[in-house]
C-alpha cells in the first residue's frame, strides 16, 4: 500500500488579501492550522508546510514539518517541487494544497488520493471542480519532485508544464462525487473554494460552521448534564463547530485538563484547534479514562 503525505504551500505574497493568508483567523484557529489538520487526518499525520524563507507562521502542531522554499516567488511549481523534495523517502503520494481553502474536506482529499492509490500508472490526480482545474487541490507522486525541480530551473513555472510530462487523471465533478461519502458531506465541492480577497474571506466567515455530532462519556457527560448544556447526555447530538474548542463551547463544556476529545474515535487530543468537518463525530472523554 502506498504511503500518503500532505503538503501545504503557505508562501506567496497574499497581495490581494493584504495580509498573510496562513495566519488568518478561522473559528478560533488559523487557516494554516486548519489545513494542516485536515490533511493530517487523512495522511496519518505526515504533513509538510512549504513557506518562504523566514516567513512567520502561526503555531502548528509539533508533528508538522516546515520547510523553506529555496526560491521564493517562483509560483506553484516551485512550491510543488519543494514539497515533494521534502517527502523523498518519506511517502509515495502527496496531496498538495494551498493554505486558503477553508472548506477542504477530508473526504475530498481521500477521494483524490485514491485515484493514485488505485492506478499505479497515473502520476497526478487533478480535480476539475467547479469549472476550474485545481492543481493546488491535487495528488502527486513524490517521484515527480525531480521533474518539477527541472522545470523550475528551466523557468517553466506553470503546473501545465508539469502535467505535460506525466500521466494525469483529471477528475471532474461527477467523478469526484461518485464517492458517496464526498457526495454526502460536500455535495457542492466547497472543498476547492479559496479565499483570495478580504471580501472572499468575509463571505467565507459568514457561512455556518460544519454540522457535527457530539457524544459525551463518563464524568464529562455527567458534568455537562449538570451544567444544563445538552439535551441528551449519553446519546449523539448535533452541533455546528469548526474546531474541537468551538464544539466544546457550543455545549458549555470547559475543555480543560480533565477533558480530552477523540475525533471519529481516532486520535485523542487536548488541542482545541483540531479542525472539524461536516459529518464528523466528536467524543468528549474524561482525561482519566482507564482503570
Amino acid at each position, binding site marked *: 500500500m502506498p504511503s500518503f503525505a500532505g503538503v501545504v504551500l503557505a508562501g506567496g505574497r497574499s497581495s490581494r488579501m493584504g495580509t498573510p493568508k496562513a495566519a488568518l483567523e478561522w473559528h478560533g484557529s488559523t487557516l494554516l492550522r486548519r489545513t494542516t489538520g485536515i490533511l493530517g487526518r487523512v495522511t*496519518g*499525520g505526515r504533513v509538510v508546510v512549504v513557506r518562504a524563507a523566514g516567513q512567520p507562521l502561526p503555531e502548528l502542531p509539533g*508533528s508538522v514539518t516546515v520547510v523553506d522554499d529555496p526560491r521564493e516567488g517562483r509560483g506553484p511549481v516551485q512550491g510543488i517541487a519543494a514539497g515533494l523534495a521534502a517527502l523523498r523517502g518519506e511517502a509515495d503520494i502527496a496531496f498538495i494544497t494551498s493554505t486558503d481553502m477553508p472548506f477542504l474536506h477530508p473526504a475530498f482529499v*481521500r477521494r483524490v488520493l485514491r485515484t493514485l492509490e488505485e492506478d499505479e500508472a497515473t502520476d497526478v490526480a487533478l480535480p476539475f471542480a467547479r469549472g476550474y482545474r485545481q492543481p493546488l487541490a491535487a495528488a502527486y507522486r513524490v517521484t515527480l519532485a525531480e521533474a518539477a525541480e527541472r522545470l523550475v530551473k528551466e523557468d517553466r513555472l506553470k503546473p501545465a508544464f508539469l502535467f505535460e510530462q506525466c500521466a494525469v487523471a483529471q477528475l471532474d465533478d461527477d467523478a469526484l462525487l461518485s464517492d458517496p461519502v464526498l457526495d454526502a458531506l460536500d455535495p457542492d465541492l466547497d472543498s476547492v473554494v479559496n479565499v483570495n480577497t478580504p471580501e472572499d474571506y468575509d463571505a467565507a466567515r459568514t457561512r455556518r460552521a460544519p454540522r457535527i455530532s457530539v*457524544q459525551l*462519556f*463518563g*464524568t464529562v*457527560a*455527567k458534568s455537562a*448534564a*449538570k451544567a444544563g448544556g445538552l*439535551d*441528551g*447526555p*449519553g*446519546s449523539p447530538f448535533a452541533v455546528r463547530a469548526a474546531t474541537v474548542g468551538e464544539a466544546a463551547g457550543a455545549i458549555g463544556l470547559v475543555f480543560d485538563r*480533565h477533558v*480530552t*476529545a*477523540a*475525533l*471519529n*474515535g*481516532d*486520535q*485523542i*487530543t*487536548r*488541542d482545541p484547534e483540531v479542525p472539524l468537518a461536516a459529518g464528523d463525530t466528536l*467524543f468528549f*472523554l*474524561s*482525561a*482519566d*479514562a*482507564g*482503570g
Partner: protein
Amino acid sequence: MPPGGYFGRALVVDAADGTSQTLEIGEPVLRAYLGGAGLGTWLLHRLGPPGADPLGPDAVLAFTFSPLVGTPLTTSAKFAVVAKSPLTGMLTDALASSQFAISGKLTGHDAIAIRGRAPRLSTLIIDGPATRIADATHLAGRTAAETDAAVREELGRGWRVAAIGPAGERGPSGEPGVRYATISHDGRHAGRGGLGTVMGAKNLKAVAVRASARVATADPAGVLRAARDLRERSFGPATEKYRELGTLANLLTFNAISTLPTRNFQASSFEGAPDLAEQPAEPEAEAGSEPGEIAGMRKVARSGCASCTIGCEHIYRVGRGKKARVEYENVFALGPMCGVSDPGAVLAASARCDDLGIDTISAGGTIAWAMECAQRGLIDAPWLRFGDAGALLRVLDEIGDRATELGILLGNGSRAAAETVGSGSGSFAPHVKGLEMPGYEPRTLHSMALGLAVNARGADHNRSGAYEADLSGDLDRFDGGDRHVAAAIETEDRAAVMDSMILCKFLRGVFTDPFAEWASLVSDVTGWDMTGDELRETAGNIVMAKRAYNDREGWRPADDWLPDRLLNEPVTLPSGRVAALTAERLRAMIGAYYKARGLNTEGRPDPAIYKRLLLD
C-alpha cells in the same frame, strides 16, 4: 528498625504443622522495598527455592503489609499477596483492600510467609505470634464468603479471614485447583495469577488473623495532617469517575475509541456495549439519556474498602436477592471478550466467578479463546459460541466442577490449554507470560502494548498503567516510539511504589508531584528522611527485583512479547484508519525499554544488580 511503620520481622509459617519462626528484616531491606509488592518480591527471592513448583510444598505464599497500613491515610488498608504463579511460572503479586490488611499487620509482622502443605484442608490461624492449623475439611466446596463467615463464627470476635473458593481447592486425587483461583476477603479479591491455587495447593482453605500489637508512626501529628489533606483531595475531580460512576464507565468510552477487546481480540469495539454500559445515575438519566440495560439492574448501593474515602464500589442487583460488585474488567472479560451482551448473564457469570473464587479476567480470556477454538473446530464443543450467554454460564460451571475434559482444560488457563490443543491455537491465546489480557486493545494503545509485553506479572493493567499516556492526548496512540517507552516506564515505576507503600491507584490523580508527595508520606510514618528521588530509584529497583526473580525462574526473552494475533492482524477503526502493531515496532520499543532500564539486549539484569537490590 525505623521509628515507625514497621515491626522489622516476618512470620514464616510451615503449613505442614502450623509451626512458625520469625525472620528479622533489617532496615535497609525495608527502606529498599517498602512493603507490599516490593517486600513480597524480596521475600520470594529470600525464601523461595529457585525452580520450585509453584504448587509444591516448597513454594512460598507471602501476605505482605506496608508501612502505611493502619494509619488514617485514606486507601492505605491494603495488603499484597505474592507468590510464584501457577499460570506464568513467574512472580505474581495481587493486592486487596480490607480489614485483613490491618489485622494481619497488627499480628506484629510486616509479612506472613507460608511454606509447606497441610495434611488436609485446613485453616491457618495466626493470633499475634502464635500460629496453628485447624481442620477445615467441613468447609470444602464453600465459597470464600461462606468460609470467611464460618471461620469467624468458629473463632469468635476480632478475627479477619482471607479464604479461597472451591475452585482453588485441590481435587479428590490431590490435583491442583483451577490455575487462576483467587484469595478473597470481605468481597475483595487478590485476583490475578492464581494465588488462590497456590494457597489451595497448600491445603489451606483460609488464613485467619487477629491483631495483638500496635505499631507507631514517627510523626503522628504529621501523619494526621497528611491524612486530612489526602482525605479532602480524595473528594475532588481526580476521583470523581470512581466515586460517581465506577470503572464500568470505561466500557462505552473504550468502545467509542476502539479499545474494547471483543470476541477474543477479533475486533476492538462491540456492538453490544451499550447494553452493558452504565450511564450517569438518576436524576440526570431522566433528562433524556439512554442508559444501557445494565442500568435497569442498577446499583443498589455504593460502598468502599476499609479506610477509604473514595467509595468506588458500585453494587448491582443480579437477581434472586443476590448482589454483585461490578467493575469494567469483569464486564469486559465476560461480556465483549466473549461476545455476550446480555447484562443479566454477564453479571451472573461475574457472580459465579466470585462464588467459585476465580479471576474474572483469566476466566473470560480463556473462555473467549475456547469459543474461537470451537468456532474453528479445534475443540469438540459446538455449543460454545461467541455471544451465547447460556454457553458462558455452562462453561464456567464446567471449569468450576473440573469434572469434564473441557472444564479441566480451561481451568489451566489459555496458554496451557493452547499447548494441549495445538493446531496454531496459541497464536490467538490472549495472554502474556500465561496471564490473560485485560481490557485494553494494544493495537490502538501502543504505550500499553509495551507495558503489557514487558511487565513481570504478565498481561496486566495494574502493574503497567501505560494506557494513561495513550489516552492522555499527549502522544499518538497509534505510533509507538520513544515517548511511549518513557511513558510505560513512568507508569510502571509509579505502580511499583503505590503497590509497595501501599496506596490505592484510584488515588493517583490527586498527586501533582507524586514521588515527592509519596516520599513525604512515607517519611512521616517511618521517620526516614526520604526524598522523591530516592523513591523513584526505589521504584526502579522494585521493578528490577521482579524481573530478576523471573530471570532466576526461567524467564526467556520470548516471554516479553504479545500474542501473534495482535502483531499480524490489524484492526480497522470506524474512521477508516487501519491500526496495526507490528512485530518490528514492538521489538523496537522493547529494545528501548531494556536500554532505559539498564538491562542487557536480551532483557536480563546485570548480575551486579543483585548486590544493589540486597539479593546476594
